[in-house]
Protein backbone atom coordinates (compact mmCIF):
# COMPACT_ATOMS: atom_id res chain seq x y z
CA UNK A 1 0.00 0.00 0.00
CA UNK A 2 1.08 3.56 -0.42
CA UNK A 3 2.97 5.00 2.50
CA UNK A 4 1.18 7.67 4.34
CA UNK A 5 2.83 7.67 7.71
CA UNK A 6 5.85 9.48 8.88
CA UNK A 7 7.29 6.52 10.79
CA UNK A 8 9.96 4.80 8.71
CA UNK A 9 11.29 1.32 8.47
CA UNK A 10 14.25 0.08 6.57
CA UNK A 11 13.71 -3.06 4.57
CA UNK A 12 16.20 -4.72 2.22
CA UNK A 13 15.38 -4.32 -1.41
CA UNK A 14 18.50 -5.41 -3.39
CA UNK A 15 22.05 -6.55 -3.19
CA UNK A 16 24.79 -5.10 -5.36
CA UNK A 17 28.51 -5.55 -5.88
CA UNK A 18 29.10 -2.33 -7.69
CA UNK A 19 30.35 0.28 -5.27
CA UNK A 20 28.98 3.70 -5.33
CA UNK A 21 25.68 2.76 -6.86
CA UNK A 22 23.79 2.45 -3.66
CA UNK A 23 23.17 4.66 -0.73
CA UNK A 24 23.84 1.81 1.67
CA UNK A 25 26.77 1.83 3.99
CA UNK A 26 29.80 -0.29 2.98
CA UNK A 27 30.38 -3.39 5.04
CA UNK A 28 33.82 -4.56 5.89
CA UNK A 29 35.02 -7.47 3.86
CA UNK A 30 38.09 -9.25 2.73
CA UNK A 31 38.84 -7.54 -0.54
CA UNK A 32 35.21 -7.53 -1.63
CA UNK A 33 32.99 -4.58 -1.32
CA UNK A 34 29.51 -5.67 -0.24
CA UNK A 35 26.91 -3.07 -0.62
CA UNK A 36 23.39 -3.44 0.79
CA UNK A 37 20.65 -1.24 -0.37
CA UNK A 38 17.69 -0.17 1.80
CA UNK A 39 14.37 1.43 0.94
CA UNK A 40 12.64 3.52 3.51
CA UNK A 41 8.94 2.68 3.94
CA UNK A 42 6.57 4.31 6.27
CA UNK A 43 4.41 2.31 8.64
CA UNK A 44 0.85 3.17 7.91
CA UNK A 45 -2.05 3.04 10.32
CA UNK A 46 -5.15 1.80 8.54
CA UNK A 47 -8.53 2.61 10.03
CA UNK A 48 -11.22 0.36 8.62
CA UNK A 49 -14.59 1.96 9.19
CA UNK A 50 -17.33 -0.56 8.45
CA UNK A 51 -20.87 0.61 8.03
CA UNK A 52 -23.16 -1.83 9.88
CA UNK A 53 -26.42 0.00 9.52
CA UNK A 54 -29.66 -1.65 8.49
CA UNK A 55 -29.28 -0.46 4.93
CA UNK A 56 -26.34 -2.81 4.52
CA UNK A 57 -28.67 -5.80 4.93
CA UNK A 58 -31.02 -4.91 2.14
CA UNK A 59 -32.03 -5.90 -0.43
CA UNK A 60 -32.49 -9.40 0.88
CA UNK A 61 -30.39 -11.90 -0.94
CA UNK A 62 -27.82 -9.31 -1.93
CA UNK A 63 -25.92 -9.10 1.32
CA UNK A 64 -23.91 -5.95 1.10
CA UNK A 65 -22.71 -6.32 4.66
CA UNK A 66 -21.10 -9.66 3.90
CA UNK A 67 -19.33 -8.19 0.90
CA UNK A 68 -18.22 -5.23 3.02
CA UNK A 69 -16.89 -7.53 5.72
CA UNK A 70 -14.98 -9.55 3.17
CA UNK A 71 -13.50 -6.44 1.61
CA UNK A 72 -12.50 -5.04 5.00
CA UNK A 73 -10.90 -8.32 5.95
CA UNK A 74 -8.93 -8.44 2.70
CA UNK A 75 -7.63 -4.92 3.16
CA UNK A 76 -6.76 -5.58 6.79
CA UNK A 77 -4.84 -8.70 5.87
CA UNK A 78 -2.87 -6.84 3.19
CA UNK A 79 -2.04 -4.12 5.66
CA UNK A 80 -0.98 -6.55 8.33
CA UNK A 81 1.05 -8.48 5.83
CA UNK A 82 2.93 -5.30 5.08
CA UNK A 83 3.56 -4.79 8.79
CA UNK A 84 1.18 -1.89 8.88
CA UNK A 85 -1.21 -1.34 11.75
CA UNK A 86 -4.94 -1.86 11.48
CA UNK A 87 -7.83 -0.62 13.59
CA UNK A 88 -11.32 -1.78 12.83
CA UNK A 89 -14.30 0.33 13.65
CA UNK A 90 -17.84 -0.92 13.25
CA UNK A 91 -20.18 2.01 12.83
CA UNK A 92 -23.43 1.14 14.57
CA UNK A 93 -26.79 2.79 14.84
CA UNK A 94 -27.40 6.08 16.61
CA UNK A 95 -23.78 7.21 16.42
CA UNK A 96 -22.45 4.22 18.29
CA UNK A 97 -19.20 2.63 17.18
CA UNK A 98 -17.27 -0.44 18.21
CA UNK A 99 -13.60 0.47 17.92
CA UNK A 100 -10.89 -2.14 18.24
CA UNK A 101 -7.38 -1.65 19.40
CA UNK A 102 -4.62 -1.05 16.94
CA UNK A 103 -3.34 -4.34 15.55
CA UNK A 104 0.24 -4.25 14.45
CA UNK A 105 1.36 -7.73 13.47
CA UNK A 106 0.29 -10.46 11.13
CA UNK A 107 -0.92 -12.70 13.88
CA UNK A 108 -3.67 -10.24 14.63
CA UNK A 109 -5.48 -11.14 11.43
CA UNK A 110 -7.60 -13.65 13.30
CA UNK A 111 -8.65 -11.03 15.79
CA UNK A 112 -9.52 -8.64 13.03
CA UNK A 113 -11.59 -11.34 11.38
CA UNK A 114 -13.50 -11.94 14.61
CA UNK A 115 -14.18 -8.26 15.05
CA UNK A 116 -15.48 -7.91 11.55
CA UNK A 117 -17.56 -11.06 11.77
CA UNK A 118 -19.27 -9.67 14.85
CA UNK A 119 -20.60 -6.78 12.85
CA UNK A 120 -24.29 -7.25 12.21
CA UNK A 121 -26.56 -4.84 10.45
CA UNK A 122 -29.28 -2.89 12.16
CA UNK A 123 -30.46 0.56 13.01
CA UNK A 124 -30.12 3.91 11.38
CA UNK A 125 -26.77 5.48 10.81
CA UNK A 126 -25.85 8.99 9.79
CA UNK A 127 -22.63 8.25 8.04
CA UNK A 128 -21.41 11.83 7.83
CA UNK A 129 -21.97 12.42 11.52
CA UNK A 130 -20.35 9.09 12.38
CA UNK A 131 -17.25 10.00 10.40
CA UNK A 132 -17.12 13.36 12.05
CA UNK A 133 -17.38 11.73 15.45
CA UNK A 134 -14.62 9.31 14.58
CA UNK A 135 -12.38 12.10 13.37
CA UNK A 136 -13.01 13.91 16.60
CA UNK A 137 -11.81 10.95 18.64
CA UNK A 138 -8.93 9.75 16.46
CA UNK A 139 -6.24 11.70 14.78
CA UNK A 140 -4.05 10.93 11.84
CA UNK A 141 -1.92 10.50 10.10
CA UNK A 142 -3.38 7.34 8.72
CA UNK A 143 -5.67 5.92 6.11
CA UNK A 144 -9.39 5.88 6.78
CA UNK A 145 -11.12 3.29 4.61
CA UNK A 146 -14.84 3.80 4.71
CA UNK A 147 -16.64 0.61 3.65
CA UNK A 148 -20.25 1.54 3.21
CA UNK A 149 -23.12 1.64 0.78
CA UNK A 150 -22.87 5.44 0.94
CA UNK A 151 -26.63 5.72 0.77
CA UNK A 152 -26.80 9.15 2.24
CA UNK A 153 -26.83 12.67 1.03
CA UNK A 154 -23.52 13.63 -0.52
CA UNK A 155 -23.40 16.87 1.42
CA UNK A 156 -23.76 15.00 4.70
CA UNK A 157 -21.09 12.56 3.65
CA UNK A 158 -18.78 15.33 2.57
CA UNK A 159 -18.79 16.81 6.03
CA UNK A 160 -17.54 13.54 7.45
CA UNK A 161 -14.90 13.11 4.80
CA UNK A 162 -13.65 16.61 5.26
CA UNK A 163 -13.49 16.06 9.00
CA UNK A 164 -11.31 13.04 8.42
CA UNK A 165 -9.15 14.93 6.01
CA UNK A 166 -8.77 17.69 8.52
CA UNK A 167 -7.40 15.16 10.96
CA UNK A 168 -4.78 14.14 8.35
CA UNK A 169 -6.48 10.97 7.27
CA UNK A 170 -6.19 9.81 3.73
CA UNK A 171 -9.73 8.73 2.89
CA UNK A 172 -10.77 5.83 0.73
CA UNK A 173 -14.45 5.49 -0.03
CA UNK A 174 -15.15 1.83 -0.71
CA UNK A 175 -18.68 1.88 -2.03
CA UNK A 176 -20.50 -1.43 -1.67
CA UNK A 177 -23.66 -1.46 -3.71
CA UNK A 178 -26.22 -4.13 -4.53
CA UNK A 179 -27.04 -4.93 -8.15
CA UNK A 180 -30.71 -4.20 -7.62
CA UNK A 181 -29.85 -0.79 -6.31
CA UNK A 182 -28.23 0.03 -9.59
CA UNK A 183 -30.99 -1.52 -11.66
CA UNK A 184 -34.20 -2.20 -9.73
CA UNK A 185 -35.90 -4.27 -12.39
CA UNK A 186 -36.61 -7.03 -9.92
CA UNK A 187 -38.82 -4.82 -7.78
CA UNK A 188 -42.45 -5.75 -7.84
CA UNK A 189 -45.49 -3.79 -6.91
CA UNK A 190 -45.52 -2.65 -3.37
CA UNK A 191 -44.64 0.11 -1.01
CA UNK A 192 -40.99 1.04 -0.67
CA UNK A 193 -39.91 1.04 2.93
CA UNK A 194 -36.71 2.58 4.21
CA UNK A 195 -34.76 -0.10 6.03
CA UNK A 196 -33.42 2.36 8.56
CA UNK A 197 -36.22 4.81 9.20
CA UNK A 198 -39.17 2.60 8.27
CA UNK A 199 -40.55 5.46 6.23
CA UNK A 200 -42.63 4.37 3.27
CA UNK A 201 -42.83 5.76 -0.20
CA UNK A 202 -45.54 4.52 -2.53
CA UNK A 203 -44.83 5.18 -6.14
CA UNK A 204 -45.85 3.38 -9.24
CA UNK A 205 -42.91 1.33 -10.38
CA UNK A 206 -43.46 1.96 -14.02
CA UNK A 207 -40.75 1.56 -16.62
CA UNK A 208 -40.43 5.31 -16.79
CA UNK A 209 -39.97 5.44 -13.04
CA UNK A 210 -37.32 2.74 -13.25
CA UNK A 211 -35.46 4.63 -15.94
CA UNK A 212 -35.58 7.80 -13.93
CA UNK A 213 -34.34 5.97 -10.87
CA UNK A 214 -31.38 4.64 -12.84
CA UNK A 215 -30.59 8.18 -13.87
CA UNK A 216 -30.84 9.34 -10.26
CA UNK A 217 -28.50 6.58 -9.14
CA UNK A 218 -26.02 7.46 -11.86
CA UNK A 219 -26.12 11.05 -10.72
CA UNK A 220 -25.55 9.95 -7.14
CA UNK A 221 -22.55 7.85 -8.14
CA UNK A 222 -21.16 10.76 -10.10
CA UNK A 223 -21.65 12.99 -7.10
CA UNK A 224 -19.74 10.54 -4.93
CA UNK A 225 -16.90 10.47 -7.39
CA UNK A 226 -16.94 14.22 -7.52
CA UNK A 227 -16.84 14.29 -3.74
CA UNK A 228 -13.78 12.08 -3.80
CA UNK A 229 -12.11 14.37 -6.28
CA UNK A 230 -12.93 17.45 -4.27
CA UNK A 231 -11.61 15.99 -1.04
CA UNK A 232 -8.66 14.30 -2.75
CA UNK A 233 -9.93 10.92 -1.66
CA UNK A 234 -10.13 7.62 -3.45
CA UNK A 235 -13.44 6.19 -4.54
CA UNK A 236 -14.06 2.64 -5.68
CA UNK A 237 -17.29 0.74 -6.09
CA UNK A 238 -17.77 -2.94 -5.28
CA UNK A 239 -20.92 -4.59 -6.49
CA UNK A 240 -22.14 -7.12 -3.94
CA UNK A 241 -21.97 -10.60 -5.25
CA UNK A 242 -18.91 -10.02 -7.39
CA UNK A 243 -15.41 -11.13 -6.50
CA UNK A 244 -13.78 -9.12 -3.75
CA UNK A 245 -10.36 -10.38 -4.87
CA UNK A 246 -10.91 -9.06 -8.36
CA UNK A 247 -12.01 -5.75 -6.87
CA UNK A 248 -8.89 -5.47 -4.74
CA UNK A 249 -6.45 -6.51 -7.40
CA UNK A 250 -8.34 -4.75 -10.14
CA UNK A 251 -10.07 -1.52 -9.19
CA UNK A 252 -7.98 -0.73 -6.13
CA UNK A 253 -4.77 -1.59 -7.95
CA UNK A 254 -5.69 0.70 -10.81
CA UNK A 255 -6.24 3.44 -8.27
CA UNK A 256 -2.73 2.74 -6.93
CA UNK A 257 -4.10 1.91 -3.51
CA UNK A 258 -2.51 -1.54 -3.57
CA UNK A 259 0.35 -2.83 -5.61
CA UNK A 260 2.39 -5.97 -6.04
CA UNK A 261 5.77 -6.17 -4.45
Amino acid sequence: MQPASRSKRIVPTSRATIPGTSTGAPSPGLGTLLVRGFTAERQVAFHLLLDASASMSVPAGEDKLAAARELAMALAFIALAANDTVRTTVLLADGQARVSRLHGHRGAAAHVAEELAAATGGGALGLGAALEAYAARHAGPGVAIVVSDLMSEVDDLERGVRALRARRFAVVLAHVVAPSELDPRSLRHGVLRDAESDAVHAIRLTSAAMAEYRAVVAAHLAALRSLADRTRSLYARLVAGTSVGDFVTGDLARLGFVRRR
Partner: protein
Amino acid sequence: MSGPGIANPLGALAFLALAVLVLLYLRSRRRQAIPVATLFLWRRVRAPLVEHRSFRPDLLFWLQAAILAALAAACLRPYLERAAGAAPAARLLVLLDVSASMQARELDGVRFDLARARVQSELAGLPAGDEVMIVTAGARTSVGLRWSTDRALARSRLEEITALDVPTDLTPALELALAEARVRAARASSCSPTSRRRRAASRPRSRHGRVGTHRADGRQRRHRRCGGGRAAVRRHARHQRAGPGPELRARAAAGRARCARGWRHVDTAGALARGAREHLRDAA
Protein backbone atom coordinates in the same frame (compact mmCIF):
# COMPACT_ATOMS: atom_id res chain seq x y z
CA MET B 1 -102.69 -3.12 1.55
CA SER B 2 -100.12 -3.59 -1.16
CA GLY B 3 -96.36 -3.15 -1.47
CA PRO B 4 -93.12 -5.01 -0.94
CA GLY B 5 -92.34 -6.75 2.29
CA ILE B 6 -89.78 -8.97 3.96
CA ALA B 7 -90.75 -12.27 5.45
CA ASN B 8 -87.45 -12.92 7.22
CA PRO B 9 -85.82 -9.72 8.55
CA LEU B 10 -83.09 -11.72 10.27
CA GLY B 11 -81.92 -12.72 6.85
CA ALA B 12 -80.26 -9.30 6.66
CA LEU B 13 -77.44 -10.83 8.68
CA ALA B 14 -76.49 -12.65 5.53
CA PHE B 15 -75.27 -9.35 4.11
CA LEU B 16 -72.36 -9.62 6.53
CA ALA B 17 -70.93 -11.98 3.98
CA LEU B 18 -70.30 -8.93 1.81
CA ALA B 19 -68.21 -7.40 4.55
CA VAL B 20 -66.25 -10.59 4.83
CA LEU B 21 -65.69 -10.54 1.09
CA VAL B 22 -64.37 -6.98 1.25
CA LEU B 23 -62.02 -7.90 4.08
CA LEU B 24 -60.70 -10.86 2.18
CA TYR B 25 -60.24 -8.70 -0.87
CA LEU B 26 -58.36 -6.05 1.06
CA ARG B 27 -56.20 -8.68 2.65
CA SER B 28 -55.27 -10.21 -0.67
CA ARG B 29 -54.63 -6.83 -2.29
CA ARG B 30 -52.65 -5.35 0.55
CA ARG B 31 -49.48 -3.87 -0.87
CA GLN B 32 -46.31 -5.53 0.23
CA ALA B 33 -43.63 -3.41 1.81
CA ILE B 34 -40.37 -3.64 -0.09
CA PRO B 35 -37.37 -2.73 2.06
CA VAL B 36 -34.84 -0.53 0.35
CA ALA B 37 -31.57 0.84 1.63
CA THR B 38 -32.69 4.40 1.38
CA LEU B 39 -35.58 6.43 0.11
CA PHE B 40 -33.80 9.66 -0.69
CA LEU B 41 -32.95 8.45 -4.15
CA TRP B 42 -36.49 7.21 -4.78
CA ARG B 43 -37.92 10.51 -3.64
CA ARG B 44 -36.04 12.19 -6.42
CA VAL B 45 -37.92 10.12 -8.93
CA ARG B 46 -40.79 12.13 -10.35
CA ALA B 47 -43.03 9.13 -10.75
CA PRO B 48 -46.72 9.18 -9.97
CA LEU B 49 -47.50 8.19 -6.46
CA VAL B 50 -49.78 5.34 -5.75
CA GLU B 51 -53.06 6.68 -4.52
CA HIS B 52 -53.85 5.86 -0.97
CA ARG B 53 -56.94 4.15 -2.15
CA SER B 54 -56.86 0.79 -0.56
CA PHE B 55 -60.06 -0.50 -2.12
CA ARG B 56 -59.86 -0.94 -5.85
CA PRO B 57 -62.32 -3.67 -6.78
CA ASP B 58 -62.11 -5.45 -10.05
CA LEU B 59 -64.67 -7.25 -12.13
CA LEU B 60 -64.27 -10.52 -10.27
CA PHE B 61 -64.96 -8.78 -6.99
CA TRP B 62 -68.16 -7.27 -8.32
CA LEU B 63 -69.26 -10.63 -9.64
CA GLN B 64 -68.66 -12.28 -6.29
CA ALA B 65 -70.39 -9.45 -4.50
CA ALA B 66 -73.40 -9.71 -6.78
CA ILE B 67 -73.72 -13.42 -6.10
CA LEU B 68 -73.44 -12.90 -2.37
CA ALA B 69 -75.94 -10.07 -2.44
CA ALA B 70 -78.41 -12.19 -4.35
CA LEU B 71 -78.04 -15.01 -1.85
CA ALA B 72 -78.39 -12.62 1.06
CA ALA B 73 -81.46 -11.05 -0.49
CA ALA B 74 -82.96 -14.48 -0.90
CA CYS B 75 -82.44 -15.05 2.82
CA LEU B 76 -84.70 -12.06 3.46
CA ARG B 77 -87.52 -13.85 1.66
CA PRO B 78 -88.93 -10.72 0.11
CA TYR B 79 -92.43 -10.62 -1.25
CA LEU B 80 -94.62 -8.20 -3.14
CA GLU B 81 -98.10 -7.82 -1.78
CA ARG B 82 -100.65 -6.72 -4.29
CA ALA B 83 -104.31 -5.99 -3.93
CA ALA B 84 -105.73 -9.23 -5.14
CA GLY B 85 -109.03 -9.41 -6.94
CA ALA B 86 -111.96 -11.23 -5.49
CA ALA B 87 -111.23 -14.90 -5.25
CA PRO B 88 -113.49 -17.05 -7.37
CA ALA B 89 -116.29 -18.31 -5.26
CA ALA B 90 -116.32 -21.96 -4.42
CA ARG B 91 -119.45 -23.86 -5.08
CA LEU B 92 -121.08 -26.62 -3.16
CA LEU B 93 -123.64 -28.85 -4.84
CA VAL B 94 -125.66 -30.89 -2.41
CA LEU B 95 -127.39 -33.94 -3.80
CA LEU B 96 -129.84 -35.08 -1.18
CA ASP B 97 -131.57 -38.43 -1.33
CA VAL B 98 -135.18 -37.99 -0.33
CA SER B 99 -136.32 -41.52 -0.99
CA ALA B 100 -138.09 -43.68 1.52
CA SER B 101 -134.90 -45.38 2.56
CA MET B 102 -133.79 -42.11 4.10
CA GLN B 103 -136.60 -42.44 6.58
CA ALA B 104 -134.91 -45.39 8.19
CA ARG B 105 -134.04 -44.92 11.81
CA GLU B 106 -130.50 -45.47 12.91
CA LEU B 107 -129.10 -45.57 16.40
CA ASP B 108 -128.58 -41.84 16.54
CA GLY B 109 -131.55 -40.70 14.55
CA VAL B 110 -133.33 -40.79 11.26
CA ARG B 111 -131.03 -41.03 8.28
CA PHE B 112 -132.52 -38.01 6.56
CA ASP B 113 -132.20 -35.90 9.66
CA LEU B 114 -128.59 -36.97 10.00
CA ALA B 115 -127.91 -36.10 6.40
CA ARG B 116 -129.62 -32.74 6.72
CA ALA B 117 -127.68 -31.93 9.88
CA ARG B 118 -124.46 -32.73 8.08
CA VAL B 119 -125.42 -30.49 5.19
CA GLN B 120 -126.26 -27.74 7.67
CA SER B 121 -122.82 -28.04 9.19
CA GLU B 122 -121.30 -27.91 5.72
CA LEU B 123 -123.22 -24.75 5.01
CA ALA B 124 -122.08 -23.23 8.27
CA GLY B 125 -118.47 -23.93 7.38
CA LEU B 126 -118.68 -22.33 3.95
CA PRO B 127 -116.98 -18.95 3.55
CA ALA B 128 -119.23 -16.09 2.67
CA GLY B 129 -119.58 -15.72 -1.05
CA ASP B 130 -119.52 -19.40 -1.84
CA GLU B 131 -122.44 -20.62 -3.81
CA VAL B 132 -124.64 -23.51 -2.85
CA MET B 133 -127.01 -25.59 -4.91
CA ILE B 134 -129.33 -28.25 -3.52
CA VAL B 135 -130.67 -31.07 -5.65
CA THR B 136 -133.07 -33.65 -4.29
CA ALA B 137 -133.14 -37.14 -5.65
CA GLY B 138 -136.23 -39.23 -5.19
CA ALA B 139 -138.38 -40.82 -7.79
CA ARG B 140 -137.92 -37.56 -9.58
CA THR B 141 -135.10 -35.11 -9.49
CA SER B 142 -135.83 -31.61 -8.41
CA VAL B 143 -133.77 -28.55 -7.66
CA GLY B 144 -134.31 -27.37 -4.13
CA LEU B 145 -132.15 -24.30 -4.56
CA ARG B 146 -130.38 -22.81 -7.53
CA TRP B 147 -126.86 -21.49 -7.14
CA SER B 148 -127.07 -18.97 -4.36
CA THR B 149 -124.88 -17.33 -1.79
CA ASP B 150 -127.78 -16.73 0.55
CA ARG B 151 -127.13 -18.96 3.52
CA ALA B 152 -130.41 -18.24 5.24
CA LEU B 153 -132.28 -19.18 2.11
CA ALA B 154 -130.27 -22.33 1.76
CA ARG B 155 -130.94 -23.32 5.35
CA SER B 156 -134.65 -22.66 5.03
CA ARG B 157 -134.88 -24.64 1.82
CA LEU B 158 -133.02 -27.41 3.49
CA GLU B 159 -135.50 -27.43 6.35
CA GLU B 160 -138.36 -27.60 3.91
CA ILE B 161 -137.05 -30.72 2.26
CA THR B 162 -138.36 -33.96 3.73
CA ALA B 163 -137.95 -37.57 2.89
CA LEU B 164 -140.73 -38.94 0.75
CA ASP B 165 -142.25 -42.35 0.36
CA VAL B 166 -140.79 -42.83 -3.03
CA PRO B 167 -138.06 -45.04 -4.48
CA THR B 168 -134.67 -43.73 -5.38
CA ASP B 169 -133.63 -42.85 -8.88
CA LEU B 170 -130.25 -41.21 -8.63
CA THR B 171 -129.44 -41.34 -12.29
CA PRO B 172 -131.12 -38.15 -13.41
CA ALA B 173 -129.94 -36.38 -10.26
CA LEU B 174 -126.37 -37.36 -10.92
CA GLU B 175 -126.67 -36.42 -14.54
CA LEU B 176 -127.90 -33.03 -13.45
CA ALA B 177 -124.99 -32.73 -11.03
CA LEU B 178 -122.57 -33.72 -13.78
CA ALA B 179 -124.02 -31.13 -16.04
CA GLU B 180 -123.58 -28.51 -13.39
CA ALA B 181 -120.08 -29.74 -12.74
CA ARG B 182 -119.22 -29.34 -16.37
CA VAL B 183 -120.19 -25.73 -16.44
CA ARG B 184 -118.91 -24.83 -13.01
CA ALA B 185 -116.03 -26.01 -10.96
CA ALA B 186 -118.12 -27.37 -8.22
CA ARG B 187 -117.86 -29.29 -5.09
CA ALA B 188 -120.66 -31.65 -4.55
CA SER B 189 -122.08 -33.63 -1.73
CA SER B 190 -124.31 -36.54 -2.33
CA CYS B 191 -126.35 -37.98 0.45
CA SER B 192 -127.74 -41.29 -0.57
CA PRO B 193 -127.83 -44.87 0.69
CA THR B 194 -126.52 -45.85 -2.72
CA SER B 195 -123.08 -45.17 -1.57
CA ARG B 196 -123.72 -47.32 1.40
CA ARG B 197 -124.58 -50.21 -0.86
CA ARG B 198 -121.43 -49.60 -2.85
CA ARG B 199 -119.34 -49.75 0.29
CA ALA B 200 -121.00 -52.97 1.18
CA ALA B 201 -120.17 -54.37 -2.22
CA SER B 202 -116.56 -53.50 -1.67
CA ARG B 203 -116.35 -55.32 1.63
CA PRO B 204 -114.78 -58.78 1.63
CA ARG B 205 -117.06 -61.67 1.14
CA SER B 206 -118.19 -63.70 4.07
CA ARG B 207 -116.95 -67.16 4.59
CA HIS B 208 -119.99 -68.48 2.78
CA GLY B 209 -119.05 -66.60 -0.33
CA ARG B 210 -122.03 -64.30 -0.13
CA VAL B 211 -122.33 -60.61 -0.03
CA GLY B 212 -124.95 -58.88 1.99
CA THR B 213 -125.77 -56.04 4.23
CA HIS B 214 -125.87 -56.41 7.89
CA ARG B 215 -128.57 -55.73 10.29
CA ALA B 216 -128.11 -54.15 13.61
CA ASP B 217 -127.89 -57.55 15.27
CA GLY B 218 -125.08 -58.56 12.96
CA ARG B 219 -127.07 -61.16 11.05
CA GLN B 220 -127.30 -61.06 7.34
CA ARG B 221 -130.48 -59.51 6.21
CA ARG B 222 -130.66 -60.66 2.64
CA HIS B 223 -128.49 -62.26 0.03
CA ARG B 224 -127.88 -61.01 -3.41
CA ARG B 225 -126.19 -64.12 -4.58
CA CYS B 226 -126.39 -67.54 -3.19
CA GLY B 227 -123.80 -70.22 -3.40
CA GLY B 228 -126.52 -72.62 -4.51
CA GLY B 229 -126.84 -76.25 -3.67
CA ARG B 230 -128.18 -78.00 -0.66
CA ALA B 231 -124.83 -78.08 1.11
CA ALA B 232 -124.59 -74.36 0.94
CA VAL B 233 -128.14 -74.01 2.21
CA ARG B 234 -127.35 -76.31 5.09
CA ARG B 235 -124.21 -74.42 5.96
CA HIS B 236 -126.15 -71.20 5.88
CA ALA B 237 -128.85 -72.58 8.14
CA ARG B 238 -126.25 -73.90 10.53
CA HIS B 239 -124.58 -70.56 10.56
CA GLN B 240 -127.84 -68.82 11.29
CA ARG B 241 -128.55 -71.14 14.14
CA ALA B 242 -125.12 -70.73 15.61
CA GLY B 243 -125.32 -66.99 15.45
CA PRO B 244 -122.62 -64.66 14.23
CA GLY B 245 -119.03 -65.27 15.07
CA PRO B 246 -116.67 -62.61 16.48
CA GLU B 247 -115.40 -61.63 13.06
CA LEU B 248 -118.89 -61.18 11.77
CA ARG B 249 -119.86 -59.18 14.82
CA ALA B 250 -116.93 -56.81 14.30
CA ARG B 251 -117.85 -56.34 10.69
CA ALA B 252 -121.44 -55.69 11.69
CA ALA B 253 -120.32 -53.01 14.15
CA ALA B 254 -118.24 -51.32 11.46
CA GLY B 255 -121.15 -51.54 9.07
CA ARG B 256 -123.47 -49.96 11.56
CA ALA B 257 -121.04 -47.11 12.09
CA ARG B 258 -120.84 -46.50 8.38
CA CYS B 259 -124.59 -46.76 8.00
CA ALA B 260 -125.05 -44.27 10.80
CA ARG B 261 -123.27 -41.72 8.73
CA GLY B 262 -125.62 -42.56 5.91
CA TRP B 263 -123.98 -40.48 3.29
CA ARG B 264 -120.73 -39.92 1.49
CA HIS B 265 -118.98 -36.70 0.73
CA VAL B 266 -117.29 -36.24 -2.60
CA ASP B 267 -115.16 -33.20 -2.97
CA THR B 268 -114.36 -32.99 -6.61
CA ALA B 269 -116.26 -33.06 -9.78
CA GLY B 270 -114.04 -35.87 -10.99
CA ALA B 271 -115.02 -38.05 -8.07
CA LEU B 272 -118.61 -37.14 -8.64
CA ALA B 273 -118.31 -38.22 -12.23
CA ARG B 274 -116.79 -41.51 -11.18
CA GLY B 275 -119.59 -42.06 -8.70
CA ALA B 276 -122.15 -41.28 -11.38
CA ARG B 277 -120.62 -43.77 -13.73
CA GLU B 278 -120.64 -46.47 -11.09
CA HIS B 279 -124.22 -45.68 -10.25
CA LEU B 280 -125.22 -45.89 -13.88
CA ARG B 281 -123.43 -49.21 -14.16
CA ASP B 282 -125.21 -50.53 -11.07
CA ALA B 283 -128.51 -49.30 -12.37
CA ALA B 284 -127.93 -51.05 -15.67
